[in-house]
């Protein structure tokens, strides 16, 4: 990726971060922490890596994304609206009765959502199925999945991990949002995942680890993963829960936060560099 491309994506990530803070702030409560930590990876996937068409969200040959940590839905909705999958004003109906944008990703309600998630631990299995289906049908496309680190405690992930390696699913590229936090505290204190890389290599996955807020580094990892044959890839993203959102970053209780319009505006001002 050249410098201009990196700049473009970083700028887009900043816009999406701002939008997400604004949209959740409009309601006054939401999963801000886990949205902020995946902004870079979702931005890269949707504005560079993936082949998708907002005008034809269900076209058969396309890349697919399973946001298994479904509570980060609002971040993805901001991207989907910006890309034209649905009108921008839908964003401000987040969680309002009758909305098409619920807290957790819902493929029946939202154009551009490839899999319903929200019950943690189910998404990777679904991604395996999508990857198998794509291969059977000779569709030269990738399936991407994003799981949380707390979510990785669900045993189903490891069942899916075994299946993906067994079936040599090199069209499956997964990410772990390794933000080191879950609801009840720091992941290392609740249920340690150490050592996370050796777990995935132990399951025979091609495993990479990069700074999850470094656009160029994530892109490089994705390109390397695409080049691997015969094995699924896991890209572990070292991230910060609440990243870039002044009132949330580094705060242990940032999972599902209540915040005011003033807090949202202040965080947005800082991101815009208006001080």
């Amino acid at each position, binding site marked *: 990726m050249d410098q201009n491309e990196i700049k473009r994506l970083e700028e887009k990530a900043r816009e999406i971060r701002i939008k997400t803070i604004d949209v959740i702030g409009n309601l006054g409560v939401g999963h801000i922490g886990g949205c902020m930590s995946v902004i870079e990876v979702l931005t890269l996937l949707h504005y560079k890596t993936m082949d998708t068409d907002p005008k034809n969200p269900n076209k058969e040959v396309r890349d697919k994304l399973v946001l298994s940590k479904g509570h980060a839905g609002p971040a993805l909705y901001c991207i989907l609206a910006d890309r034209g999958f649905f009108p921008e004003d839908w964003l401000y109906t987040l969680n309002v*009765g009758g909305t098409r944008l619920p807290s957790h990703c819902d493929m029946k309600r939202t154009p551009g959502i490839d899999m319903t998630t*929200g*019950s943690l631990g189910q998404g990777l299995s679904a991604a395996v199925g999508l990857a198998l289906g794509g291969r059977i049908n000779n569709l030269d496309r990738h399936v991407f999945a994003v799981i949380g680190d*707390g979510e990785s405690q669900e045993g189903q992930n490891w069942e899916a991990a075994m299946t993906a390696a067994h079936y040599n699913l090199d069209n499956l590229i997964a990410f772990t949002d390794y933000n080191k936090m879950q609801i009840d505290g720091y*992941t290392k204190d609740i*249920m340690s995942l150490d050592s996370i890389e050796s777990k995935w290599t132990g399951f025979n996955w091609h495993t990479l680890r990069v700074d999850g807020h470094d656009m160029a580094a994530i892109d490089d990892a994705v390109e390397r993963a695409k080049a691997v044959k015969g094995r699924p890839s896991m890209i572990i993203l070292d991230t910060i829960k609440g990243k870039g959102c002044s009132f949330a970053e580094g705060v242990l209780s940032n999972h599902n936060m209540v915040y005011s319009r003033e807090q949202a505006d202040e965080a947005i001002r800082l991101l815009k560099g208006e001080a």
Partner: protein
Amino acid sequence: MADTRDLREVYKDTLCTLAEEDKKICIVEADLMNATGTPGFKSRFPERAFDVGVAEANMVGVASGLAAAGMIPFAASFGCFAARRAYDQFFLSGNYSGLKVKLVGTDPGVSAIYNGGTHMPFEDIAMMRAVPGLTILEPCDRRSLEELIRQAAYLEGSVYIRLHRKGGLSLYDENTSFEIGKGVVVREGTDLTIIAAGLVLMEEAVKAVEILEQKGISAALIDMHTIKPLDNDLVLEYAGKTGAVLTCENGQAAGGLGGAVAELLCDTKPVPLSRLGVKDEFGQVGTLDYLKEAYGFTAENIVKEAENLVKRK
């Protein structure tokens, strides 16, 4: 001073009191300790509080092992996950094995609000009713919750407790006693009997009986805090006395409290019956008020159902 505690606080306080008296009492959680309201238990009894992370099946399996080791485990998660993600573990490692596992499902029905359809357990009662010998509780009142948790701890068998986390009612005076399997008559009446379970519907039912009174309809109201085993004697007594029964619940009526009452009445002495609850639908997001309106969980709708029901007598 009036007791204004949230039901989850009552739950935590009761477990702390029990744990003070009995070293066997312990808790197992799955990264929702903050939601269940048990961090206070953990700080007082750190060696008896286990958080297994986001892993409900594991949580119930571990609780079953603790029970086999002679402990009295209370395991908790959102009701959707406690029931659906750990059903086989609860069924087999817990119930089939004859172990005493106390499983708590929080955020029942529409109280899951912004977590939406993926998190909104409408089916847990129906699922749990199919587990042989299991006791199912859904208290809405603070004193009854405290007393029923105490009894649940020492019950010979497993228990599923549907726990509304926030808010709570104080319906009863000091002299009211509570017993697992015995419904409580909140109010006498002659024209029909409303049988409600859980905070959402009981709050509305209390209002509904007042409105009905003004309309000249006398409704008895029963707090059916135990859905299984159902208090057959009480249901039959009031069905006989009032000649019509309306069940109200925050979940699927088919298979739920409504299903239990329908089975009993059909098996014995049918009377006109209406079952207010979710009708074969999934959940969705919204505020509590929006969802109550959407599924008909309002005093107005209870009144309407009651009026239609008495016409069928």
